[in-house]
């Protein structure tokens, strides 16, 4: 092993460990804001591991979209809501036995799976490192827009439907809101607002 390999191994183990620990902390910390922050850490470390595996575009996009946008919004909401942590945990004891049963079943299934593994499942091949100059952003773009054009466009329609659904569920036209409408303010003409009257002068002798 040459030194660069050592460094790669080291980077993997350091970030991998942080990833696992922070993922564990996401579900164990008491405060939701801290949980969200550990999730940020989680995504960040995942991105590093992906870049290490040679998928630099996916790694950076993970940071850009999940860390940079989705989790910011999540934090935004969590900070605004005053979540009562104790209330969230109320049901825990009540549902614990059921959860334990489900967990047991899952463990049994996993054990069975590993048992099956020894029977002849060879596992998946490790990913192949591509050349350093290989531009996997371009490769991904070519795949998406050429070979997978049809699924890609379908995914676009899904996003559109999400947009329509969100607006359908939340848009409310409330009556009686006082908001500025600049266009109306600009369009207004004198005769809309001002009424010219010629008042009759008070009759002479009448007391005011």
């Amino acid at each position, binding site marked *: 092993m040459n030194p660069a390999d050592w460094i790669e191994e080291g980077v993997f183990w350091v970030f991998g460990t942080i990833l696992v620990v922070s993922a564990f902390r996401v579900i164990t910390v008491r405060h939701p804001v801290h949980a969200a922050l550990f999730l940020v850490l989680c995504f960040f470390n995942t991105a590093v591991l992906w870049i290490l595996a040679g998928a630099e575009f996916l790694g950076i996009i993970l940071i850009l979209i999940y860390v940079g946008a989705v989790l910011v919004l999540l934090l935004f909401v969590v900070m605004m809501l005053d979540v009562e942590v104790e209330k969230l945990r109320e049901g825990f004891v009540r549902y614990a036995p059921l959860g334990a049963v489900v967990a047991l079943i899952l463990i049994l299934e996993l054990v069975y*799976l590993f048992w*099956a*593994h*020894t*029977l*002849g*499942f*060879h596992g*998946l091949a490790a990913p192949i490192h591509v050349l350093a100059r290989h531009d996997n952003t371009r490769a991904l773009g070519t795949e998406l827009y*050429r*070979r*997978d*054009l*049809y*699924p890609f*466009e*379908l*995914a676009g*329609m*899904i996003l*559109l*439907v*999400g947009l*329509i*659904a969100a*607006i*359908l*569920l939340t848009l409310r036209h409330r009556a009686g809101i006082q908001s500025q409408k600049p266009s109306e303010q600009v369009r207004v003409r004198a005769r809309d607002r001002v009424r010219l009257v010629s008042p009759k002068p008070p009759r002479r002798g009448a007391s005011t």
Partner: protein
Amino acid sequence: MMSMSAIAPEAWVAGGVLFVVLLEALRPFVRDRTLAFAIPASTLLALGLAAMSASFWTAASWGVFFDGGLIVDPLSRLLVVSVSVVALLVVIYSIGDLERHGFGHGEYYALLLSATLGILAIVTGANVLVLFLGIELLSLSLYALVSIDRERVIAAEAAMKYFFLGAIASGILLYGLSLLYGLSGTLSLAMLPKMIAGLGGGDRVLFLFATAFVIVALAFKFGAAPFHMWVPDVYEGSPTPITLLVGTIPELGAIALIMRLLVAGLHPLSAQWMPMVLGVAILSLLVGNLAALAQSNFKRLLAYSAIGHVGFILLGIATGTISGEIAAVYYTIIYVTMTLLAFGILLVLRARGRDVEDLDDLAGLSQIHPWWSLLMLFAMFSLAGIPPFVGFWAKLSILRALLGQGEVWVAVLAVIMAVVGAFYYLRVVKIMYFDRVANQKAMSVPWGIPELILSMNGLALIVLGLVPDALWQLCAWAVRY
């Protein structure tokens, strides 16, 4: 240009979605009357063009397009045409009701079209990725449509349940599909059987694991027991036009999904998945028919009846034979026709001042609306499987396929459940014809095109029942290809 004709139905419907959204965006500048005409009209046009362009496919059009994303074969032609026509009918039956209750804005039409697009993608999907995206497109549109009447608590509850359970089911499906992809290294449904056939031992166990996930998710999307919990709530909670939609076209999508993914894609594993499907089918038969007996709400009753019918359809699949698969497709198309009629009549009655929620609301219907009562009787008899209505032939074809495989006990159970089913369908007829309620007032509303088409839909049940062979031949040809 071949691929252009292959994608034409999807393209028309997707274009319809965009056009309707665009029209809706013009609302501040255009009169409401104009939009109230233009939006449904463009929806109908898009669906009509989709059906037309698919029906023009000939043997020369068969093939796989878009690098294995889209397949054009007789099955996709049959189902694309059925889905488009059913969606067309759904719109026609619903227009009046939507207008009256204020849901007639563009979003209903846009979501209906996108749901249809999702189903079309499933129907013509030749690749696991496309199937999954189609399911998601369909599901997201349906979640939104169910909650379209957001002021009603019951609708919000139905939508929440549907959304959460649906999201879990999608996760399970995705997990199963990703296992399939990881093991086989291919997304193509044509390649999948070859890859599976070349494996043995432990890998097959993992494949089975993946298949179980897929079946659970499919059962959920189809509304089969024991994953049926959302069905009654959604049927009851949504406004009737939405129930009409949820109860019809997704069933066509589900059968397409099963035909493409399970029957074709996982064919080498059929010996393993057949028992699973059989179990789900028998459970659905029991749950659907027995629970329907206890219902007093008409829409809930139809929901449980839907679960029972799904059981029948899955029985056809579980035989693992060609004739069983033909019967399943045949059954689905007929079932959708009958459901269209039943919910269509509810909408017509609503327009005439009779909002049917409970079974008792149907009491004495025959005196006021003799024609609609008669059509409802057609629907009920056909759902119950009483000759000469077409529902009889559907049930018979499934039973024939079961007996052909020597599954006598399953067939006997199916017959028993059909008899149980007949009991509650006939109860509806009894309430309509023999229960009397005082203080009836008739509201006469002139007939329009929707009423005319609905009546033809009802008569079609008899006509198809008298000449059942034409549709059967069509399905047989589509599935055999």
